[in-house]
């Protein structure tokens, strides 16, 4: 099981690349500009990986997105980010 991080908005073609690269157990963590992907309007883009999408609390909070975050997205803080990298065998970053 791998962890993938993404820091680009859901309109970026990089999202297509990470989705193509994700295995059936892999997890996706949205950080930086990618947390815009946690908005309900964007959940269609993450259909193939629903339930395995995480977003960084601090990046949601600084952007005013915490209250707008879709409930299908799991919110983790920086310690949770560290924990994800421990649990997953490897981390691949997409930017």
């Amino acid at each position, binding site marked *: 099981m791998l962890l993938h991080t993404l*820091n680009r908005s859901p309109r970026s073609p990089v999202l297509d690349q990470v989705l193509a690269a994700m295995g059936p157990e892999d997890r996706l963590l949205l950080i*930086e500009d990618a947390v815009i992907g946690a908005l309900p309007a964007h959940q269609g883009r993450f259909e193939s990986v629903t339930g395995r999408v995480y977003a960084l609390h601090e990046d949601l909070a600084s952007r005013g997105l915490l209250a707008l975050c879709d409930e299908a997205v799991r919110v983790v803080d920086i*310690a949770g*980010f*560290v924990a994800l*990298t*421990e649990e997953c065998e490897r*981390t*691949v970053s997409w*930017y």
Partner: protein
Amino acid sequence: MRYAILLLDAPYTSQAAHSALRFTRALLAGGHVVDGVFFYHDGVHNAARLAAPPQDEPHLVDAWAELGREHAVPLQVCIAAALRRGLLDEKEAARHGKQGFSVEPPFELTGLGQLVDLGLRCDRLITFGP
């Protein structure tokens, strides 16, 4: 676990350096070992000793240096990526006939082989890109 960090963008231009610094601090707080932070691509600008950000913004260069010193984390800067971007330590400045230098310890200029070595030696390599 043993971690390595690869940082690929400059401070202030993108958030990558801020994320990498916070993540590295969280690793250390969680009891992990950080075998090195490797600065590549525009990440080499994190070593810019002349950086003078506004007083009310975090000073990333100083923050990395402090982290490196306090926790004995090697701060390795890719020498090829650094030279073309104007980041030279005293030795490289002399070699290239330049007056003055822009990188100082605890940052160290090193080869890309260190990145490969770090990546294969550590349990985890985490990349922060622009």
